[in-house]
């Protein structure tokens, strides 16, 4: 790989904290500090602080902003109240996913959209290509913002020590804008990607280090630890949150991914509506399942899933669940096998029974 990797404003802090730096989606990011399992369990029991500044941001504003977003997103956008956010998917005409996103309504005619790092520039180009004659402006703010996620049972207590914002008044998927650790203009939202309670904080890039240090200092007595992308991945998989490029992609639609709840067919028109409607009515040709294994071997991305001697699917994500202390993962399986009790997965020539889970492994 010859491309230059980007660094977040917290790169020096990661190195100082002993983070192991790896390339991820074009960025040099910490995969872990002390260990993925330790950091994972800290988030479940106390709290972890993640640098997610690699995520992208775009501001969408103008008279037609809400209508524009309703036309390109699967979820309802016009009904988001100011001060609230909503998870949505942005689809291609064939129903494949361009990205999954969180849309924050800052004002009647102004939204901030959080984009996946690997898709940020693609998303912005895609949105701009769909503006047409609508009065809407799409501003690339990827380098203006840093992002921190503070996640875990003590996250709110720690955050309350460095901000005067009334955190208790923030509902799930709600947000407030204000000062955090002396940095003005931060967006504090009760959202996350771990399955544990907590907040995501959008902050001006030049304030990131000051805020991160203040949170780490305030959190240290409460058991807050810096956490890397490794724990972020195992946490999101336990909670069955999709990761773009794995559970959703240009070839896996939100209907297939089990994200039908984000697709609002009551809207008269949005990109992908017809294809998604056909899938929802007829049933998709394949769908994503969550599974666990009674073994120590991890079924990793690409591992083949079998019904008898016939391959009926493949693993999309796999890890060890630190909470269950057994391997978990997701797989894309052909129609008719999504509740099968007969599936096996091939791990280095061994066929291990795959147990389909009906609910996420953490609530």
């Amino acid at each position, binding site marked *: 790989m010859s491309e230059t990797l980007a660094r977040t404003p917290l790169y020096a802090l990661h190195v100082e904290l002993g983070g*192991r730096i790896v390339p991820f989606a074009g960025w040099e990011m910490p*995969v*872990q500090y002390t*260990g*993925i*399992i*330790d950091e994972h369990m800290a988030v479940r029991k106390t709290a972890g602080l993640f640098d997610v500044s690699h995520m992208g941001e775009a501001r969408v504003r103008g008279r037609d902003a809400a209508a524009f977003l309703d036309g390109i997103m699967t979820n309802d956008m016009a009904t988001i109240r100011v001060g609230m956010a909503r998870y949505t998917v942005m689809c291609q005409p064939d129903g494949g996913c361009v990205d999954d996103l969180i849309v924050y309504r800052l004002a009647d005619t102004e939204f901030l959209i959080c984009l996946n790092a690997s898709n940020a520039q693609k998303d912005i180009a895609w949105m701009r290509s769909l503006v047409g004659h609508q009065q809407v402006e799409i501003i690339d703010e990827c380098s203006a913002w840093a992002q921190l996620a503070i996640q875990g049972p003590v996250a709110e207590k720690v955050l309350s020590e460095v901000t005067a914002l009334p955190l208790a008044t923030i509902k799930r998927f709600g947000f407030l804008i204000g000062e955090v650790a002396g940095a003005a203009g931060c967006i504090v939202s009760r959202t996350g990607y771990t399955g544990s309670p907590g907040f995501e904080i959008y902050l001006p890039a030049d304030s990131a280090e000051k805020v991160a240090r203040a949170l780490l200092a305030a959190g240290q007595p409460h058991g807050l630890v810096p956490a890397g992308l*490794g724990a972020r991945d*195992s946490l999101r998989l336990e909670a069955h949150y999709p990761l773009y490029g794995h559970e959703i992609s240009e070839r896996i639609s939100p209907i297939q991914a089990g994200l039908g709840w984000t697709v609002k067919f009551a809207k008269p028109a949005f990109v992908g509506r017809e294809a998604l409607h056909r899938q929802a009515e007829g049933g998709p040709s394949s769908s994503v399942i969550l599974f666990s294994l009674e073994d*120590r*071997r*991890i079924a*990793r991305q690409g591992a083949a899933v079998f019904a008898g001697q016939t391959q009926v699917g493949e693993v999309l994500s796999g*890890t*060890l669940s630190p909470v269950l202390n057994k391997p978990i993962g997701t797989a894309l399986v052909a129609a008719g096998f999504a509740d099968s009790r007969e599936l096996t997965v091939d791990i*280095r020539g061994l066929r291990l029974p795959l147990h389909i889970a009906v609910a996420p492994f953490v609530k």
Partner: protein
Amino acid sequence: MSNVPADLRYTKDHEWVKVAADGTATIGITDHAQAALGDVTFVDLPKVGQSFGHGDVFGTVESVKAASDLYSPISCEVLAANGDLNNSPDLVNREPYGGAWMIKVKVKNAAELASLLDAAGYSAIL
């Protein structure tokens, strides 16, 4: 910095070999290897009596992040495999040169031992 004990031999694949005077050897993975793998969650080891040639895959070590093959540093026959790693794969992270030995073997071709790296040679490639 990684710990590289002076009394062991090494491969460029980050295995260590402790050669005994009686023609046997003990094999494991190095401190550098365990640190690079991260939390080890599973170690798949061969059965007693299995034979391997120099460079053959004799097992697998899995971490949260990846599964990695274990390569036999020498031609050998397995005399024992460390059963403690079934229940405590994390020993590999905690005691790579001690409790986390992987296999004890009979050395089939003593001449191959000369191709292993000494501690200085191994440190030089880290």
